[in-house]
């Protein structure tokens, strides 16, 4: 019983990290209907940038995180302006953007391999020690990760509801002609969306990097999990992605407990197939 509770707690923590990672994917898709197949690599890149600053100075992780956020935001803007924007103007963009981002992801993965090497890296946890409630064991670091993710989600919510740009992104997600007639510059909003999503994704990569080992190939794992999560949650629904991430995180942890770690991937894919057969639009999907 204690093992089950610990597994669920562990799953909730992993789930909240997955949620942070899936948010960026949902944001891009929701606003521009572009599915970022290079998503996992974007998270990894954000993590590697922060990793560079570790041990270089005191407060290295914080400085690294800030630099990563800014760099990933700019990277997102550039990717949009120079590659996605031209593709969107041509017919068949739904496919061309997917293929392009997939290819760019592979390219970036190999660049990371060249620059950082194949040895795993990790970002140290920021709080030592833990908490013991009866049979349940949680460490402070992982709790702080959940708190950080919750704070990030709350900040994003406030951004979308209260700022002019956030409201514009929400409007574009719902109706492009509607956004045009109220005077929103669609192109500019798309660029900012990519920037924001890349920054959020990179940030989630840093968080993931404190719990899992980083190597250039783990990006694809994150990508696949992110893909399954947003499909479960309903493409374009941020709350759906969050619920799905937490549920799938817990399911994954329970499966690992009762089966073994080898079953992680089969479980994800079986769940995905069940979803496609029973409710392909996702839990909260339907307003694509």
């Amino acid at each position, binding site marked *: 019983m204690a093992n089950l509770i610990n597994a669920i707690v562990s799953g909730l923590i992993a789930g909240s990290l997955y949620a942070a990672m899936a948010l960026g994917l949902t944001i891009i898709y929701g606003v521009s209907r572009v599915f970022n197949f290079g998503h996992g690599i974007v998270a990894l890149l954000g993590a590697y940038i922060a990793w560079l600053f570790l041990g270089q100075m005191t407060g290295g992780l914080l400085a690294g995180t800030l630099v990563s956020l800014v760099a990933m935001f700019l990277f997102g803007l550039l990717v949009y302006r120079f590659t996605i924007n031209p593709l969107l103007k041509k017919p068949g963009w739904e496919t061309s953007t997917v293929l392009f981002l997939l290819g760019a992801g592979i390219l970036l993965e190999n660049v990371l391999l060249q620059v950082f090497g194949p040895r795993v890296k990790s970002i140290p946890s920021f709080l030592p020690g833990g908490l013991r409630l009866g049979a349940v064991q949680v460490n402070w670091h992982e709790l702080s990760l959940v708190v950080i993710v919750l704070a990030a989600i709350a900040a994003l919510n406030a951004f979308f509801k209260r700022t002019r740009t956030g409201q514009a992104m929400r409007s574009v997600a*719902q109706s492009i002609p509607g956004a045009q007639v*109220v*005077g929103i510059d669609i192109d500019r909003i798309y660029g900012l969306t990519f920037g924001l999503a890349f920054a959020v994704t990179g940030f989630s990569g840093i968080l993931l990097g404190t719990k899992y080992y980083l190597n250039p190939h783990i990006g694809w794992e994150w990508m696949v999990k992110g893909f399954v999560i947003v499909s479960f949650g309903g493409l374009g629904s941020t709350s759906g992605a969050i619920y799905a991430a937490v549920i799938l995180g817990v399911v994954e942890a329970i499966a690992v407990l009762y089966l073994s770690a080898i079953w992680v991937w089969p479980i994800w894919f079986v769940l995905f197939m069940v979803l496609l057969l029973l409710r392909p639009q996702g839990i909260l999907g339907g307003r694509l």
Partner: protein
Amino acid sequence: MLEVRQLEARYGDLQVLRGVTLRVGEGEVVALFGPNGHGKSTLLKVLSGLHPPAAGKVGFNGQDITALPAHRIVELGIAYIPEERHLFRDLTVYENLNMGAYNMRARPKMASNLEFVFSIFPRLAERRDQMCSTLSGGESRMVAIARGLMSEPALLLVDEPSIGLSPGLRSAVFEAIGQINREKGITILIVEQEIRHALKLAGRIYMFKKGQVLFERPADEVDVAEIEKAYF
């Protein structure tokens, strides 16, 4: 205020606008009549920047706005109310109106525009916190017009505002458009099939057929029968 000269537009290989020439003076209400599928909506889409022109010129208050993108045209003071409405369905009435005031010129005027909009459409004040996906056809029409007004326009391009509405609502919508022109001095170019009502509202009319202007008349010099005849 609005000068359209020899405007052409295409959908792929299909020529829809074949050299449209018309003008709208400041403060006027001008109605555009004509059969369906002949390009009236396309004309409004090109004027508002939602569809690219193939040839010709559009001038607004002396400025050439021919190939400007939609958001620039809204900034200059032209608001387009599409027939399809294109509301933000998962936002409330108030949030839609708030988005209507997105452009920088409209922001400081938001409170007074909101007041005006609720005064001509009291129903919307009652429904202000309701999701737009739950509104009736007439109510969502009102939100579409109100949202356009929130952008602080000098010129309103309205595409068939009364289509699909009950007679009572139709009158209310035309009444509101008249009020918008009289009380705010906003210039109106309205595409309509409701000839009777539109003739009462308009000062001048254009007959539009096969992608071109067929004729132009002052509204008091033409009757419904003559217009209906020109349809066929």
